[in-house]
């Protein structure tokens, strides 16, 4: 077909510049489009479908508010919401200040084996929540719990000392699972990025260690603390395992178990109602985004600049006490679950010495003779290692752009990352499935390892971007400016200046995302095929089987995941120390 082009020449006013979009605008547009598609589109699909009361998969549509009405009309829904807030507030009230103190002790004081102790918090985080809960149940069950049985042998003890089947028990189980370890893990690198001269100035002015911590260290750590708190807040409705095991027998119901039941134990899954309930998280996010921007934008948080001097404080006589306290907490967090997992794998029934025979190698034989296990091990390793390498690089660069560049669309991109937490994993996996199925050109990804890699790389985006942002907020602009003035390119400055400074966070995010990738279930279950099954999916298959030994077998698979993660964490930390700034 012939076409005619009409050229219109507009007169150029003298002195007026032709507006050409800058490279920054282009990069930001690409990022917003990509993450918008990946994050917002599935959420929109799920929301639209929550109003569809006809067959979701069949592609039929009949819109009404029925799902929303039914979801919020369930008896006891307000009570369960109140219970969720109660449990969250309780364990956060304990874990947050405790984590801040522990991070400060590990990073800012002359603590013996501080790196090793910090690493043990990582190990605690890597251990499955379910194992930790079951481990503590074996100790604190009022009827047969080992500690209670032992305590009742004392002459002055009548009845059980502890009851894990209680609200206090649920809060305790959260603390022992990862409520504390995750916060310590995320906060400690930020505390390490502190210029000792600031604290020295405080001390020269006559302040003691505690006053220096309260008046100097903590205020400049606000970005990291705000991010860690808010990351926990948006995941308030994600936890259900602990409440299900410890809460159901005492009729203590929480909001998240209701969402879980609607998705997993309803035929067909009531995705619409689950979405309606999960939408409360979006309200929290709507409040968080402006609050976080206001908190972080109202003052300067630079702790690392050209005159950065690493160093730590000596607590004197209090140092051994602090060491003992941290060691005790680390032991509580790791010994019970590791013993449950490792010891239980050799027992006919984990934790039950009455079983005949008490010990067996049968569970190990079952795992090692399953041909799918080795395939799953290989897939998991590929997924997790790719995620651990790629995700810190991508997200550190995005965080750099969000903090250092004032490109248009900055706030939109940041909000997109927050919105990714708006829907729990069990629903976002479904949204992603619909996106892949419904988008021409993407369907070839279905069932391949590539889609799993994309999902696992991107699933830790919120934590990664926010943690890198808080790291960049701690760093002064002067070093990069000096490098650029001396003729260094942006990439040279990034790799020679920023990378060593953010090395602890890089390693942390790498390991965190490795752990998430290796343990991913709900985000990948609908996208994996038999050829791309992962260890965590295999463990889930065993867990859902009714066989008597299923939990022990699933535990052994978890052990492989933990061993793999620990091994990588050790290598990554060593590498991080090599490229990072030495603080001692």
């Amino acid at each position: 077909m012939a076409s005619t082009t009409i050229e219109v020449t507009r007169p150029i006013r003298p002195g007026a510049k032709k507006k050409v979009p800058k490279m920054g605008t282009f990069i930001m547009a690409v990022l917003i489009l990509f993450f918008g598609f990946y994050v917002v589109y599935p959420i929109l699909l799920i929301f639209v479908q929550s109003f569809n009361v006809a067959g979701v998969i069949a592609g039929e549509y009949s819109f009404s508010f029925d799902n929303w009405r039914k979801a919020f009309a369930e008896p006891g829904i307000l009570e369960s919401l109140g219970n969720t807030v109660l449990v969250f507030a309780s364990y956060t009230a304990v874990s947050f200040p405790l984590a801040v103190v522990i991070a400060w002790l590990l990073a800012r004081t002359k603590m013996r084996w501080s790196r090793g102790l910090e690493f043990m918090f990582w190990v605690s985080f890597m251990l499955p929540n379910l194992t930790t809960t079951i481990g503590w149940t074996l100790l604190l069950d009022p009827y047969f719990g080992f500690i209670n049985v032992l305590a009742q042998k004392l002459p002055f003890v009548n009845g059980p000392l502890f009851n894990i089947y209680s609200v206090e028990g649920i809060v305790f189980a959260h603390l022992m699972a990862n409520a504390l370890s995750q916060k310590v893990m995320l906060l400690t690198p930020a505390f390490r990025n502190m210029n000792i001269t600031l604290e020295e100035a405080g001390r020269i002015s006559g302040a003691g260690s505690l006053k220096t911590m309260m008046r100097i260290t903590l205020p400049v750590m606000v970005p990291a603390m705000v991010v860690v708190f808010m990351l926990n807040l948006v995941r308030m409705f994600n936890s259900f395992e602990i409440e299900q095991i410890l809460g159901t027998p005492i009729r203590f119901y929480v909001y998240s178990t209701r969402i879980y039941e609607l998705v997993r134990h309803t035929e067909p899954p009531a995705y619409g109602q689950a979405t309606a309930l999960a939408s409360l998280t979006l309200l929290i996010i709507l409040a968080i985004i402006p609050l976080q921007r206001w908190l972080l934008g109202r003052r300067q948080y630079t702790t690392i600049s050209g005159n950065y001097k690493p160093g730590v404080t000596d607590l004197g006589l209090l140092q051994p006490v602090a060491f003992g306290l941290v060691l005790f907490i680390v032991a509580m967090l790791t010994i019970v679950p590791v013993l449950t997992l490792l010891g239980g794998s050799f027992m006919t029934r984990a934790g039950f010495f009455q079983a005949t025979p008490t010990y067996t190698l049968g569970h190990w034989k079952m795992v090692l003779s399953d041909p799918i296990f080795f395939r799953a091990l290989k897939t998991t390793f590929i997924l997790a290692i790719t995620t651990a390498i790629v995700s810190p690089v991508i997200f550190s660069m995005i965080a750099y752009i969000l903090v250092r560049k004032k490109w248009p669309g900055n706030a939109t991109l940041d909000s997109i990352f927050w919105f990714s937490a708006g829907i729990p994993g069990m629903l976002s996996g479904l949204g992603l499935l619909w996106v892949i199925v419904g988008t021409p050109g993407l369907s070839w990804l279905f069932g391949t390892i590539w889609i799993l890699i994309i999902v696992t790389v991107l699933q830790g985006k919120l934590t990664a971007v926010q943690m890198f942002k808080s790291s960049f907020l701690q760093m002064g602009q002067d070093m990069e400016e000096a490098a650029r003035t001396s003729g260094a390119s942006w990439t040279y400055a990034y790799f020679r200046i920023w990378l060593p400074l953010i090395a602890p966070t890089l390693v942390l995010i790498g390991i965190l995302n490795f752990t998430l990738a290796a343990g991913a279930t709900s985000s990948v279950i609908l996208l994996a095929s038999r050829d791309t099954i992962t260890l965590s999916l295999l463990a889930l298959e065993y867990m859902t089987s009714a066989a008597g030994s299923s939990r022990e077998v699933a535990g052994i698979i978890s052990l492989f995941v933990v061993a793999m993660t620990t091994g990588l964490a050790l290598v990554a930390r060593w590498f991080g120390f090599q490229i990072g700034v030495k603080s001692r």
Partner: protein
Amino acid sequence: MIRKLIASAALSALLLLPTTASAAPNTPEWEALVKAAKAEGKVEVILSGQVPQRLRPAFAEFEKLYGVKVNFQTGGGNAHADRILAERKLGRFTLDVWLGGANTALVQLYPNKALARFDELLIDPEVTDTSKWFQGKHHYTDPEGRYIFTWGASPTYNIAYNTKLVDPNEIKSYADLLNPKWKGKIVSWSPANQGTGASSVPMFMNPKIGEEWFRRWATEMNVTIVTDARQGAEWVAIGRFPIGMFGLNTQAESLKDQGFPIKDYLPHPMAEGEVLSSSAANMMVMDRAPNPNASKLFVNWVLSKAGQTAFIKAAEKMDSLRTDTPKDFLDVQYRIQPNANYIVPFSDPEYIDKQDEMLARMKKIMQDAGYR
């Protein structure tokens, strides 16, 4: 002497032959099916639910006999159904046969027209001869009676008990469980759950038990509800609760085998009658199955005498609805007794129609009693 030796060797050889070898039909249609199935080389199967997941060892016999590989996947039915239906939307057809519970099939696969007509696939005379099946008919669990084939069933056992704390003769009927003596001493899965519905709904519909029994059980007995069957069964095994109900039996059996003082069933039938439950002993073939000949061969083999014998051997606690399979390796309590008067809900259209309604009413009872 030589004749005797030859005769005894021949007899031994006959006994060693797999039963199927002699039972397979010798028709051109069958030969063509076997040839086409061998060319496809495999059949893709989903095993969803407790019973199907135990069936893996049975497939070796089929593979050996026909040289067709059985590729299986296990796991929860819901996730598989979501994935399979999404795949089908993309025009991908990766699954041949589904062995599992009827719920997922009835509410997800059947309404989405993902299932093939099962009755049209049956060609082996040994399978199509309904006189060899329980009640002289094939049992289907879908409203049309053509898609979801039920191959097995067993008397339902809803009660496990601690053998040191309970005299089983004290519980002869469900009414006995409402004795105040057992108040606060029962642990259970919720009977309103989809998973326990197969045994609780027939009780609910049984006029001798019915809604009133459930209401009293939930409101008067201070029952402890768990969502983890293992946790509940372990509590019965160590004596924390003397009685466990609804869905704890598989775990109770495992604990019994490990030497705990627990029994997964009462030694006598309950006075209100016994329910036959098919649990997850159902089989469906997917519409547009990628290996149609292998699928057809597979289902005909599964439903043959040899296939059913292999299945119930592997499943351990599920009887076949074929009446001619050997039962001696099956514990007595799991066998379908020929003269017993069972309630048979799985192929009863009224039961199939009303199941959701009954579960909703049970859920309401549980909620009114303070369980969520």
